[in-house]
C-alpha cells in the first residue's frame, strides 16, 4: 500500500509479500482486533449508536466508489447523488410495480448504475476537469428530474414506501441485522477496491490520473479504462443507493439533493485524495459531523434557543470545515495520520533521512 520506505528499512523478499494486503504480524493482529471490535460493537451499543454506525458503513460504500473514480482515475463527478438516487429508485420502482424481492432489485440497481455509468462516462472521453464536472452535474439534475417525474406521474408525490427485504419468511428490519448487512457491504466494497487497485486496472487508472498523454503512450486504452472507472464506480454507488432505500424503507427525490453529492465529495477531500483509508475516514467524519455539532450545541447554555438554528449551524460548519481542509490540509485526514505515524517512527528525530540515503 504505502510505497514510502519504512524508517527501519525495506525487508520484503518476494513478490508475494509485496502483493499481500496485510503484510506483517502486527498488522494481522491489529486487523483481527479491529474486526472483532466491529463484530462485538452491536451487542453493547445503543440503537442510536447502531444507526450511526450503519449510516457510516453506507457512506463508506459510496465514498469508496467515488474515491475510485476521483481519487484514483482522476475523473471529477458532481453527479454521485444522482447515481445514488438511480439505485434507490430502481428498488422503489421494481418494488412498487413488480413487487420484486431484493435479490432481483439489487442486481438490477447495479445494472442501472452501470448503464448510467456509461452515460456519465461518455462525456469524459472528450471533456476534462471543469467541463466534466459540469456535465456530471447536469446529468445529476436529469436523473433527479426523471425520479421526480415518476413520483408525480404515479401519485407518490411524497415518496415511495418500501417494505423491508424478506429472507424466506423473515423480514430484515432489526437494527442489528442491518448493521451486519451494511458492514458486509462496506467490507466487500473495500475488498473489491483493494483488489482492483493492485491489478492492471488500478495501475492504468493511476497512470491516466497522472498524465493522460503519457498513459496513452504507454499503451493504455484511455477510453476503455475511463469508461470502466465510471461503470464500476456508478454500479457500486447505485447499489449503495439501493441499500439506502431498503435501510430507510422510503425513497424520495428530496433525499438526493446536490448537497448529498457535495457531501460525498467532501468525504473524499476530507479523508484525503487517492487513499482508500481516506475514503473510510472521510465517510465516518462527514457522517458523524452533524451529530457532533448537534450535541456540542445542545451542551451549551440556553440550548433551547438554538435548537431551531441547528440545521443552519450544521450547514455553515460543514462549509467551514471543507474550506479549512482544502486550504490548510489538502492531504486530508490521511495526511494528518501519516504525519503522526512518521512522528513516532522517527522519534527522537524530526525529519526523514534524505531520499536514497539508505536502502
Amino acid at each position, binding site marked *: 500500500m504505502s510505497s514510502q520506505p519504512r524508517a527501519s528499512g525495506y525487508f520484503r523478499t518476494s513478490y508475494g509479500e509485496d502483493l499481500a494486503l496485510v503484510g506483517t504480524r502486527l498488522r494481522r493482529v491489529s486487523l483481527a482486533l479491529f474486526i472483532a471490535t466491529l463484530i462485538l460493537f452491536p451487542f453493547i451499543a445503543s440503537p442510536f449508536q447502531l444507526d450511526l454506525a450503519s449510516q457510516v458503513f453506507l457512506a463508506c460504500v459510496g465514498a469508496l466508489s467515488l474515491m475510485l473514480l476521483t481519487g484514483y482515475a482522476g475523473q471529477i463527478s458532481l453527479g454521485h447523488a444522482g447515481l445514488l438516487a438511480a439505485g434507490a429508485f430502481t428498488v422503489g420502482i421494481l418494488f412498487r410495480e413488480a413487487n420484486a424481492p431484493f435479490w432481483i432489485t439489487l442486481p438490477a440497481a447495479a445494472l442501472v448504475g452501470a448503464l448510467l455509468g456509461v452515460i456519465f462516462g461518455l462525456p469524459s472521453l472528450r471533456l476534462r476537469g471543469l467541463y466534466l464536472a459540469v456535465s456530471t452535474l447536469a446529468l445529476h439534475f436529469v436523473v433527479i428530474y426523471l425520479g421526480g417525474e415518476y413520483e408525480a406521474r404515479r401519485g407518490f408525490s411524497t415518496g415511495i414506501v418500501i417494505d423491508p427485504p424478506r429472507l424466506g419468511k423473515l423480514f430484515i428490519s432489526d437494527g442489528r441485522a442491518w448493521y451486519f448487512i451494511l458492514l458486509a457491504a462496506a467490507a466487500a466494497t473495500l475488498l473489491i477496491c483493494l483488489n482492483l487497485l493492485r491489478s492492471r486496472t488500478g495501475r492504468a487508472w493511476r497512470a491516466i490520473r497522472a498524465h493522460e498523454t503519457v498513459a496513452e503512450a504507454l499503451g493504455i486504452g484511455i477510453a476503455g479504462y475511463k469508461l470502466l472507472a465510471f461503470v464500476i464506480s456508478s454500479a457500486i454507488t447505485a447499489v449503495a443507493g439501493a441499500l439506502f432505500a431498503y435501510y430507510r424503507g422510503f425513497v424520495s427525490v428530496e433525499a438526493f439533493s446536490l448537497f448529498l453529492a457535495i457531501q460525498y465529495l467532501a468525504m473524499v477531500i476530507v479523508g484525503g485524495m487517492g487513499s482508500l483509508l481516506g475514503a473510510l475516514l472521510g465517510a465516518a467524519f462527514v457522517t458523524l459531523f452533524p451529530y457532533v455539532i448537534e450535541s456540542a450545541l445542545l451542551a451549551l447554555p440556553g440550548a433551547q434557543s438554538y435548537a431551531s438554528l441547528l440545521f443552519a449551524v450544521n*450547514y455553515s460548519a460543514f462549509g467551514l470545515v471543507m474550506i479549512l481542509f482544502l486550504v490548510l490540509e489538502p492531504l486530508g485526514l490521511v495526511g494528518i495520520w501519516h504525519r503522526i505515524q512518521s512522528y513516532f517512527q522517527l522519534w527522537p528525530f524530526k525529519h526523514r533521512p534524505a531520499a536514497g540515503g539508505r536502502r
Partner: protein
Amino acid sequence: MQLIVNITVLAAIYALLACGYVLIYRVSRVMNMAHGELAMLGAYLLYTTASLFVGHPIVAIAMAVVLSLTVGVLVYVVLMRRMTGEMVLAAILTTIAIGVLIRGFVVLIWSGAQQHPLQTLNFSNPSIALVGGARISTCAALLVLMTVVVYGALFAFLRFGSWGIRMRAAGQSPLLAAQRGINLNAIYALAWGLSTLTGSIAGMLIALDSGLDQTMVVIGLKAFAPALVGGLDSLVGALVGSLIVAGAEVLAIHYIDPLLSDVVPFLVLLAMLIVRPWGLFGTREELDRV
C-alpha cells in the same frame, strides 16, 4: 407576445448572472460554483440596508452595491488567492464550500423565511402593458434595462478601460501579464468583485420582483448553462447563450411540462458539451487534468 416577454426577462436574468461566471473564468480559469449563493447574499444585503435606512432607498441601494463588491473582493483575498495553482477540482470544491457556508450563514442571520425587500424599500411594482396585450412588471423591465446597462458598461470597460485591458491580458497569459508589471492579485480580486457585483444586482432585482429566499441558488446554478453554451470566456456568448437557454426553457414550460423548468438548461448544456464543449463563441483550449 407574452411568451416573448417572458423569454426576454428570463434571458436578462440569465445574462446578468452568466456574465459573473464569464468574468471569473476568463481571467482565472476558475468556475465559481458559489455564484448563485453570492447573488443571494447580495439580495439579502439589500434587504438589510433597506431596513436600516428606511426612507432613503437610494442610500440603501448604493450601500448594498458597495457591500456586495466588497464581499466579492474579500472572497478572493481571503480564500481563492490561496487556491491559485492548485488542482481544478480543489478550486471548484472551494467555491462549492463557500456556497455551502454562505447558505448556512444566510439562514442563521436572516432565517429561511421568504423576505420582500420591495416592501422594505417602499417601492411598488405595477405591471406595464406592452404592445400585443403582453404585460411586464416594472422590476422585470428594470431588470432587462439593467442587463443592457451592465453589458454595455462591461464591454466598454474591457475594451477601453486600462484595467479592462489589463484584465484581458491577464486572462490571455498570466505569465506574460505579470512580466509586464500587471498586478495579477489585484486583477483577480477585481474580477471577483465585479462578478459578485453583477450577480448581486441580478439577485437584488429578482428579489425585488418575486421575493427572496433560498431558491435563488438554483437560478444561479441554472445560469451556468448559458455561460457555457455561449462559451465560458466570451461575454457576447453569454448574451446569446442566455437567449437560447431562456427560449428553450420558457417554450418547454409552456408547451410540454412545467416540471421541466429545472432540467431544460442542463439538457441544453449537455447537448452543447457533446457537440461543441468550448461553446458557441468560446476559444478552443486544452483543458486541465484534475
